């Protein structure tokens, strides 16, 4: 395992992603979602919206890094809000 060079930050990062996936699976098993149309141009299920949200969050972070000098915590906050919006109304 040592060659994988784990750090606390990345461990937390993957932990959070794993928890999200588990939570989504449990939620889906409890009450299955149907595909619906929100403000996104395509029909999406809950899982699709999570993926869209996470992928766009990654791009938000990259944009903050590449184009601004602002702290990444701001990017994280923006992403969290965006993820919630996509999950709820996307």
């Amino acid at each position, binding site marked *: 395992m040592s*060659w994988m060079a784990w750090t606390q930050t990345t461990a937390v990062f993957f932990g959070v992603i794993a928890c999200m996936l588990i939570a989504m699976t449990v939620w*889906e*098993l409890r009450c299955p979602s149907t595909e619906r149309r929100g403000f996104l141009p395509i029909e999406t299920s809950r*899982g*699709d919206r999570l993926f869209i949200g996470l992928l766009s969050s990654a791009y938000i972070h990259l944009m903050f890094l590449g184009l601004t000098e602002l702290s990444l915590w701001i990017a994280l906050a923006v992403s969290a809000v965006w993820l919630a919006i996509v999950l709820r109304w996307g």
Partner: protein
Amino acid sequence: MPMSKTKAFGITLYILFVLVPIYWLLNMSFKTNEEITGELSFWPKEFTLENYTVIFTDPSWYMGYFNSMTYVGMNVVITLLVALPAAYAFSRYKFLGDKQMFFWLLTNRMAPPAVFLLPFFQLYSSVGLFDTHIAVALAHCLFNVPLAVWILEGFMSGVPREIDETAYIDGYSFPRFFVRIFLPMIRSGIGVTAFFAFMFSWVELLLARTLTSVEAKPIAAIMTRTIGATGVDWGVLAAAGVLTILPGLLVIWFVRNHVAKGFALGRV
């Protein structure tokens, strides 16, 4: 529709474009190095098999072919074994996360091997598989398995569901139905999938070269040896190149009637 002359002319022209560079390689492989570097000639003036003799008498050369064949063969077998049931599941059932799973598989077909190069090296070293055939075979599964699932799913969706249901009513168990009835029905699909797995494993070099050093070194990596201190041994390089084309030709001959459909991944 009758074939027009322009069409025949056009396709001949394109096929010539495809074949001439290969002919040039073939041409060179039968020449001596003096002739290659000397005057440009359209066919070998002194026909020689010397270059091929070099390859077939030196174990460090022909073992390269053996190594490549071994890991390609392993890869095709593993790919088919795991991809067949999975493709069946995707074509017949809806299950939790099926779409996401399918997409995730495909992203692996699309991920550039360069991204994974270094961790792969360390991963396979740490589990003690570095420089073995199976390591390359497993690494190639990364892009071959998703492709195989994709192709097989297309072919399987073309088989009507009623067949499955009738078999179950007749008292077939799932494994027996799958092997006895279902697999023979998608024979051509399996052939095409094997062809693709063979093809992408055979042509790939970056991962194969990174994961091997001596014991399992593929032929494509050995070819770089011809560039020595005294310059390039063009004749042997060309001969080795020609020999790498032959297995592909052989395989495509077997699946020639299904290849067109296979290229469309069963989705026409």
